[in-house]
């Protein structure tokens, strides 16, 4: 019976961990992990008593690492600490009501009801945790995994330290209590309450820190956006100036032609045509104006980034062709992630195109009933081998590079409604992000 309760406690740990971390496990993985857990749990509990829980903490970090070894961060450790402390915390909260409740139900029965109390107390934490998390997730807006990944240390390290302190203070008391069967001394109660308050406080700190960082990031990107849009406006004015110049020349050309025609001086007409009219064809064919098509894009966050990158490419003498033929009012993806992907793909494309002879960059945004497609195409020197692409650290650009595309794939792993197509032809490389529209968050 004792071992059954320990097993249930171990399962509790695991399920709390699973629901906070939201790692996806296959059935096979769950069974293997649970078996490992049970064995380690039993053995370590047998050897070192209640401290066995701490070895499970080690296991959680192991799982986090295994699940996420490419971007393993403080959050992985936090999940383990959370599972450990939350289990004790909720167990502590639930213990008294459950004892009272079982006494109430089984008061006629003569059986030993202590086991039931333990059993229920061991089962309560994962259930309570699940309810709690569901509530939090329902009422708190979606956390951006991007931010958590980037600022994991600031958000999680203090909380992990606090959790460690809590574990170190609470466990000896529990341990001693286990041995003597005595939990209710006044000092112990005070310490417990203090520790739980500390725990709740640390969770609140996390919430506060997250919102603070989010606000700062939003402000930062807003001001960047403003800069980019200003630059875009300047560029548009420049184009307008060129057009004005063209209009001015055009008037002159017309006058000269008119003069030639009325005087029937065909030599002059021909000369004017060859020397002044024909060269304007180049002006008409210039792709510099293709970015005027940005007017069809009504998402200013995306517009500003596109404008900035297109100007950057044009400064590098890359021929940029932009296609946004119909109005686009929204992007069916979290904008922070989308702009992040967009800038990585564009940076890669610009860098690759800059080294080539033809020097071309094509950007297409198009939308139909089911999907939004973003295609970015660039000229390339060699035919890119698709097999290794996106692996961490693989890059056609040499050592220590290649994190960009890997990051794109990491972000996309969180978006089930996004597909990425990669095409490689001789001297041409293109990537297409396909966003299924039903994936839009309400």
């Amino acid at each position, binding site marked *: 019976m004792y071992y059954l309760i320990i097993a249930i406690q171990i399962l509790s740990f695991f399920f709390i961990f699973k629901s906070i971390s939201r790692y*996806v496990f*296959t059935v096979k993985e769950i069974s293997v992990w649970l078996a490992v857990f049970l064995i380690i749990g039993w053995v370590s509990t047998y050897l070192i008593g209640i401290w066995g829980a701490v070895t499970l903490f080690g296991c959680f970090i192991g799982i986090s690492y295994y699940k996420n070894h490419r971007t393993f961060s403080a959050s992985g450790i936090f999940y383990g600490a959370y599972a450990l402390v939350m289990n004790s915390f909720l167990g502590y909260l639930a213990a008294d009501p459950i004892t009272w409740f079982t006494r109430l139900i089984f008061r006629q029965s003569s059986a030993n009801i202590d086991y039931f109390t333990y059993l229920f107390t061991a089962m309560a934490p994962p259930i309570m945790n699940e309810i709690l998390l569901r509530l939090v997730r329902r009422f708190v807006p979606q956390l951006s995994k991007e931010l958590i990944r980037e600022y994991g240390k600031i958000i999680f390290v203090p909380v992990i330290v606090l959790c460690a302190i809590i574990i170190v203070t609470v466990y000896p008391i529990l341990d001693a209590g286990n041995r003597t069967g005595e939990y209710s001394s006044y000092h112990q109660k005070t310490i417990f309450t203090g520790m739980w308050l500390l725990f709740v406080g640390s969770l609140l700190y996390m919430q506060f820190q997250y919102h603070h960082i989010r606000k700062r990031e939003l402000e930062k990107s807003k001001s960047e956006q403003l800069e980019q849009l200003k630059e875009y406006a300047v560029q548009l004015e420049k184009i307008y100036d060129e057009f004005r110049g063209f209009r001015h020349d055009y008037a002159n050309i017309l006058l000269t032609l008119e003069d030639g025609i009325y005087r029937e001086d065909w030599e002059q007409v021909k000369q004017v045509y060859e020397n002044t009219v024909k060269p304007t*064809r180049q002006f*008409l*064919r210039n792709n510099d*104006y293709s970015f005027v098509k940005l007017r069809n894009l009504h998402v200013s966050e995306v517009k500003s980034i596109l404008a900035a990158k297109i100007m950057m490419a044009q400064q590098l003498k890359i021929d940029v*062709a932009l*296609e946004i*033929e*119909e109005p686009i009012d929204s992007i069916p993806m979290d904008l922070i992630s989308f702009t992040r992907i967009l800038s990585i793909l564009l940076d890669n494309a610009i860098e690759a195109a800059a080294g080539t002879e033809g020097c071309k960059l*094509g950007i*297409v945004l*198009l939308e*139909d009933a*089911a*999907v939004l*497609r973003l*295609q970015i*195409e660039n000229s390339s020197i060699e035919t890119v081998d*698709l097999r290794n*692409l996106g692996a961490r650290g693989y890059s056609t650009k040499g050592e220590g590079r290649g994190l960009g595309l890997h990051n794109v*794939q990491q972000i*996309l*792993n969180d978006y*089930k*409604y996004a*597909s*990425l*197509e*990669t*095409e*490689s*032809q001789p001297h041409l490389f293109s990537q297409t992000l*396909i966003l*299924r529209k*039903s*994936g839009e968050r309400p």
Partner: protein
Amino acid sequence: MNIFILEDHLIQQQRLERIVKALCVKHHIRYRHLFSTAKPDRLLAQLEGALDHQLYFLDLEIKNEKHTGLEVAQEIRQKDPYGTIVFVTTHSELAPKTFAYRVAALDFIEKDLPEEEFIQKVEACLQIADERRNLSASPDLFSFENKYTSFQIPFSEILYFETMDVPHKIRLIATSRTLEFYAELHEIAACDERFFRCHRAFVVNLASVRSIDKKNKLVVFDHGASCTVSRRLQKETIEKMEALRQEESPK
């Protein structure tokens, strides 16, 4: 073959008509009708009941019309899924990728190209359309759509599908591209009878398998691509592949 020209600028319309006629004589291309107009509605009205292969030269920007060239092209596509659409337009309206995706446009011809290049491009389009005259079948496309994605790819390009590290994520390996999306392998295997799940983690396109390496348990494709075949399913894979080949060879 019928040839349609939609162009609102009369001089341009006549120029194109002249070029097309001259080229048809030159290459002995026979056409039943050559129909030029400036009005999209008149063109669309002509489409009803057409049985032949049709070639369209469309201007994108038609004055005094609420229809844009793209809309006209989409309407044409609905009525005539196999026709050959070519856009004749100025450079500023050029959007090849969008139009290729939307209406499978064959080509774009810029009006302001030098005369010889312009004629060459028209010539190429005429010849392609003339070849297509005999083929009424649409290209063999694999269209996939589920809750998470929606895409199309020529069937002959598909080599195989594989599972990825991320659960439920699938990677499609094709001759010159890869595509990553969320789906289930069995969902894909059920899409077409030429697909076969030869391993827990792979679905192959039997039509593009070149050989099977029994020793190393590999399915080998062109260009050195290969994937694993499970020992249990190796025999079945070979049988299915051979059955498919026999089915196709008499044609």
